[in-house]
Each structure stands twice: as C-alpha cells, then as structure tokens.
C-alpha cells in the first residue's frame, strides 16, 4: 500500500497535530512547534486491556530497551545517547481507559545546536526504530537472559507500588471499583500473569505487535518537510500490511453494561504500616468523552477538587484542617471520577461526610460565580500550559485520537468557556458514588 502524499508545509499550523500519512495501520502525525530546542519522536502501539496480553505488553518494551542490532546492550544504547548530546529514550506501557498503550519516546537537541555531526536529525530516529524493530535474537527468539532479568524486574516494579502511598490509594480505589472490568487491571499486570509468560510466547506476541497493532507515530519540534518525508519512507519499511484494529470503545454501549451499574456502595479497607491514612472515593460519571456533557464534567471536577478555589480544598483543608492534600481527578476514557486525601484515621467518617456534602451541594445548585469563573479560568490556563511541553502536546493529541474527539487546544478552551453553572449542575446529577477505599495503619 502506498502512503499518502505529505501535506504542503504552508498549511501546517503551529501547535496543531497534522496527520501526514497513513498506511498499513500506521499513522504519522507532525506537530510543528518552533519555540523548543529539541525534537521528539514518539511511537504508540495500541491494544485493548486484557488479562491475556497485559503482562506481555509490559514485558516487550522492557526487553527491547535492553539492546538492539546496532547497540546490543543497554550500555551500548546509553553510550549512543550520550554521543547524541545527552538524548533521552524511554519506553513502557500506559493505561488509557481500557486501552493498553505501549510507548517509545526519544528526545534530542535540534540539529542547529550540533556542529560536529552530519545529519544529526536522523540519528535519534534510527536509534528508536532499531530498538523497536531489531531486537537481540538468540535461537530465533528474544535473548533468554534479557527476558529472565526483565521478568524479575517487572515483578519488583509491581511489588513496589506500595512504596508511594498517595498514588497507591488512587490506583487501588479504581481497581476495587472496576474489579470485574478490564479497567481494574493494573498497567503492568500482576505477578501470577507474569509467571505464565514464556520466552517463545513473548516473542510471538512481539511479532504480532510489530506486524499488526495500530501504530501512531508523533514528531514534534521544528522539522522541515523533506525530513518528514525521510521519516515516512523509513517507516514504510517497518510493516508490509497491518490487520488488528482496536475496537472503538466510544459507541456508548459499554458504559451501560450491567457490571458498571452501582447497586450498593462498596467499602474497602486495607491495612498497612502508615502514619497517615489515605481516603479515596470513586464515582461513576456516566459521561462519555464524546458527549456534550463531557465539557461541563471537566468544570464540575475543577469546582469540586481541581484547585485551591475548589470546594474540597476550602472545606476539608482550609475550614476543617483535616488534610494537607485533597483533590479530585477525572478518568476521561472510562468516565470515572476520584477524590483522594491524606487524613488521621479518626477523621475518616467526618471527612467522608464533608466530601459527600460538597457533591450534594453542587447537585442542589450551590455553585458561586467565583467558583465557576475560577474553575473555567484555571482549566483554560491548564490547557495553555500543555502547549509549552512537547510530551504533553503529544499526549494531548494522541488522547484526542484515541477518544475520537477532535479538539485542538483552542476548540477545547472555547467549549470550556461556554459551560454555564446550570450545565455543571445538570451533569453533577449523573454522578454516582461507587466505592470508598481506606488505607489505614495496622490494627485499627
């Protein structure tokens, strides 16, 4: 299949993602941003979250970064990055709703700062492609030593989740809430699933990813059109055809599935040796990112717990003095909302009570002009700030594509600007409490 012809340079808009071409289930996007000193290249392979593939997906990038054809050890890759003026390389997996994304990312300074290397721009691209497509092979599969070590390393990564109690209390609440849904699966899988992965099944899975999984490639920075053309030509070599298509989750049906319905609020308490207890409350918003209600939902989240002006910060921290930190956050793809804070164990019921009162207060129409305006301005500021970071720009547009929403920074800001107090009150009525998760010290 022949790739599309590249778009003309003069229609490329600063800070907008332009799809340059698509072929064999690969799409290439370029985001021109001339103010940065670096260019970035990101690869995203997309899968749906499932128990069968989660561990393998997590292991593949871990094994790939151990070495490739031109740079067969991790040390060789690092030496290469040092030669490329301290370029960075990173890879891993991330959960976006019920998608499981395998990402590879590299960043290097722009060619104009380099005097002693010809065609500097090509080097990081060649390196990342080599890492992804030419792993170190032994007996027709991945090098055994690398797989064994990375399985052990991944096991430790899963175990060390408990080290960061703030994040742990967020993730565990989501997991308890979505126990019987794919979303309840941890990004890096679990230890029993990891044990079952054999070296041969891992390599087979890797081949399947490279040959068939939907792939989105993003380039950001100041890159002339002929260099983009060169990137495209080189990507054509990766894959001759591609089959697997990820299901479009945003037809609305899966939100209404039986398992998603809240019948009774779940109460989960976990014990650990901690000085400070963590309280998380998980909610179903019943709002899809493709729906009109999604924009008022963003404003709702902000008024509730998005900043220092928010009801939760004001009531729980400033008035009651129960917590140092408290905030809410949205899980856009799955339509969830979560509130989390760190408190004294004895204050649990009081904190739950104050938190739920704030939501009821919004539901009954209690939003001040100040809260509404502060929330909207704060969201708009946040959107603008995304534009100052290449990784955030890339992630923003990649998420837009996944959610099949087509907002650029400006259209998103415009839609937020138009959200009225009434819109927020209306959307708040859809929100249901699902799970109360409490992490407390032993023996209490």
């Amino acid at each position, binding site marked *: 299949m022949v790739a599309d012809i590249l778009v003309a340079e003069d229609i490329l808009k600063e800070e907008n993602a332009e799809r340059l071409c698509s072929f064999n289930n690969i799409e290439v996007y370029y985001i021109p941003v001339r103010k940065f000193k670096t260019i970035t290249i990101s690869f995203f392979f997309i899968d749906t979250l499932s128990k069968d593939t989660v561990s393998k997906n997590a292991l593949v990038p871990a094994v790939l970064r151990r070495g490739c054809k031109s740079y067969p050890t991790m040390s060789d890759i690092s030496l290469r990055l040092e030669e490329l003026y301290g370029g960075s390389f990173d890879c891993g997996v991330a959960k976006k709703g019920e998608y499981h994304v395998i990402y590879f990312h590299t960043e290097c300074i722009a060619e104009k700062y380099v005097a002693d290397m010809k065609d500097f721009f090509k080097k990081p691209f060649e390196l990342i492609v080599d890492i992804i497509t030419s792993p170190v092979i032994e007996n027709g599969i991945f090098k055994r030593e690398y797989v064994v070590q990375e399985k052990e390393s991944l096991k430790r990564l899963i175990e060390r989740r408990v080290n960061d109690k703030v994040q742990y209390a967020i993730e565990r609440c989501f997991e308890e809430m979505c126990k019987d849904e794919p979303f309840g699966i941890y990004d890096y899988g679990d230890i029993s699933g990891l044990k079952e992965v054999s070296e041969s099944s891992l390599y087979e899975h890797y081949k399947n990813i490279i040959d068939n999984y939907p792939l989105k490639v993003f380039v950001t920075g100041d890159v002339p059109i002929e260099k983009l053309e060169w990137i495209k030509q080189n990507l054509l070599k990766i894959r001759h055809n591609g089959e697997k298509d990820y299901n479009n989750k945003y037809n609305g049906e899966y939100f209404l599935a039986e398992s998603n319905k809240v019948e009774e609020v779940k109460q989960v308490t976990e014990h650990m040796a901690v000085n400070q207890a963590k309280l998380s409350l998980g909610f179903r918003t019943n709002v899809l990112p493709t729906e009109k209600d999604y924009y008022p939902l963003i404003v709702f989240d902000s008024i509730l717990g998005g900043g220092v002006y928010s009801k939760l910060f004001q009531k729980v921290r400033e008035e009651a003095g129960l917590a140092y930190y408290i905030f809410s956050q949205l899980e856009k793809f799955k339509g969830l909302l979560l509130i989390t804070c760190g408190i004294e164990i004895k204050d649990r019921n009081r904190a739950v009570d104050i938190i739920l009162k704030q939501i009821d207060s919004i539901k009954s129409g209690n939003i001040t002009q100040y809260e509404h305006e*502060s929330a909207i301005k704060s969201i708009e500021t946040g959107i603008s700030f995304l534009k100052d970071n290449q990784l955030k720009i890339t992630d923003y547009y990649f998420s837009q594509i996944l959610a099949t929403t087509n907002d650029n920074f400006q259209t998103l800001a415009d839609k937020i600007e138009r959200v009225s107090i009434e819109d927020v009150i209306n959307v708040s009525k859809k929100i249901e409490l699902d799970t109360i998760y409490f992490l407390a010290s032993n023996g209490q």
Partner: protein
Amino acid sequence: MQETLKFDKIGEVMHKYRHGSGLNAFVITKKGYSKKYTVFATHYGSINNEFIDPYDNNTIKMPEGIAHFLEHKLFDQKEGSIIDKFSELGSSPNAYTSFNKTVYLFSCTERFDENLGLLLSFVQNPYFTELGVEKEKDIIKQEINMFRDNPGWRAFFNLLESLYVMNPVKNDIVGNHESIEKIDKEMLYKCYNIFYHPSNMVIFVIGDVDEERVFNQIESSISKKHKIGEIKRLFPEEPKEINREYIEEKMAVATPIFQMGFKDDTYNLKGEELLMREIAVKILLEIFMGRSSQLYNQLYEEGLINNTFEFNYTAEENYAYSTIGGESIEPGKVKEKIIDTVCFLLKDGINKEDFQRVKKSLYGKLIRWFNSQEKVSEMFISGYFKGINIFDYFNIYDKINLEYLNHVMKGHFNLDRFAVSVIQGI
C-alpha cells in the same frame, strides 16, 4: 539600572535590573511560550534557624521548620487568603521551602501585570494572627505525616543525618510535631523582618513578556525599606568526620530503599569555584555509575538495582554531598560494588574518552533544560544565591579538564566520609 546579558550559542537573552532597595530582578524572554512564570525568592531556608539579628545584634535561635511555616502563613492576608485573588485571574500561585531558600511563584497566561502585582504585594505584606498560626499547625502536622510515609524522603534525611554531625542540613525542612508547636506569631514576624528584606531577595521572570514593563512595575511596587546590615547566619562547626556509617529504618516498602553518599570537606567555596566543583562531581558520578557505565550495567544485570537508580551532587557554601539512591534487594552488595569501582578509578584515574563523551552529553542536557521554564527558573535561583549567573553553566564546561577532574575526584570520593541509609520492609 539595567543591563542585558546575551547567550548566542543557544539564542537566549537575559535582562537584569537593580532596584534601589538592593533587590535584583531578571527577565528571560521566551517568545511563543504561553506560560509566564515568575518567582520571588528569599535567601532563607530550613538551615537558617540561628542568626544574629541585624537590628539589635542579638543571637537568635528559632525552632526547626519555621521557614517552611512562614511560607505557609504568608498566603494569609488581612482580607483573607491571597489564593482567591490568583484564582480569580485563573492562575495558580505556589511556594516551596528548601534548605537555603524560600520561593514564591505563580504561572499564568493572561493578565500578567495583575498576577505580578499580587505576588509582589502578598510577599511584602505579612499578616500573622495567633488564631491563624494555631490552625496552620494542624495542616502542617498532616504534611509532616505525609512525608513520614514517604520512604524516599526518609532514606534521604536519614542519610544526611548520618553524614552530618552538627550542620542543620540534617534536619527535616518541615520540622517535627514538637518544633512546630513552639512557633508563634512573634517569631514569624521576627524572621520575616530580617530575611524578607528586599536586599536578601530576588525576582526572576521567564516567558513571553516585555521586560521594560516588568521592571517598571517592580520599581514602583517594591517598598524602599531602610537598609539593614549583613545578616549573619550562624552554623555550628561541622567536624570533617561523618556522624555514622550506617542507618536503617523499617517502613511498609516492598523492596529495600537506599541512599548512600559522600560528604565533602570543602567549605566556603563560592561563585565559579563552587560551580566548577559541582559540575566536575556530576561528570564524575556520570562516568562512575551513569547508564552507560560498567558499574550500572553490572548491578542491573545482577538484579541488584532497577531503573529507579539515580545519583546527584549538591554543593552549597556550607555543605556539599553526593547521593546515590534506588531500590535493591541487597543494598549491602550495591555498596560493595560502588566502593570497588571508586577504589579502582581513584587508582587508575579517569579515561579521556569517557570524560569527553559525558561532558558532551551533560552539555546537551543543559540545552534541553532551556525548554522548561520551571527548570531554568530553579537553576537560576539556586545559582543566584551562590553567586552564579545561569549562562556560566555553559562556559564552565570548557574550563574543566582532566587534571582538575582527577583532583576533585580524590577530594570528594573519600571512603572515610561515606555513609549508607537503608529503609527495610516490615
């Protein structure tokens, strides 16, 4: 008084302005950036609890954690919390306290003048009440509890507590429940009046702004206070030796966490000398145990470390130390391998090729940092209080040669001043 500093190599320009009060302000213009980022910082942090009051020459000793407490309370103004006013403008103010500085900042996209006005106003107008101070104690105790559950933070402070016998850098920035209880309104005012004098402060703005307007606003908004004499910060004498070689604490962690490091015995370095040493030790650490090094790869392959492994070097006038941290099933073995490598390199010296490559890599990373307003700002302020201009970071690389590197290596990597801190699982 105004001047312009250019740095053509990376296309950056910095404007400087000196206010009559002794305060300096700097602007780096970043065309095309949405964010306008401003910090207003004082050269006063958690280690400055003992000093001579320049108003009456009395020696003062304050409770631990007071600089951080003051940072919290400055947001409360007579007419309520200043945060509400920033929120109305859609911007987010913030602040943090470190060992030797307290930094107030905001980032905004629009109505920059109004935001700057708020920042200049609230930092210059303390309003402490007994009731407000008492209430803040509860919130800060929760903050202390949060840090107590953070194994990385605990490992770090346990290391400093092992490296240092007397130096207050060993104490937690936020203080502790007991020290916080002692703080009252009068103490806060006393510290404020001394350390928040404009001559002890600096303003730094980075973003797509007009420097003339910024400087005009600063000219009219900074109060022309009476000059005060030099603030004498007192530090107990620190012996060359470390406090203890090993410390362990038990917490809810899956894999043990470690921090180990060397304590420097050089004091009172300033300006370029201090910066040269800082960059030299960073180059050395990178050569010793960076991602491309034999040591890192050996430890990784043997399953003794994972990619949480990291290292750093901090150099200030009154203290300097390196930190090497991460997770390991056997921190003791990591320690042994590090010591072996250090001994080997001390004997053999640094390889020229490694030196050139790592230098190039760190230089490129420095250029990359200029993408981030936050990073530039942090680098600027830490440098400023040490007497270093941010563009000097680039020039210093050319001044470091192999001979100097080997000299610094022998001074810093002294196994008699090496300590290990481990957090074990329960």
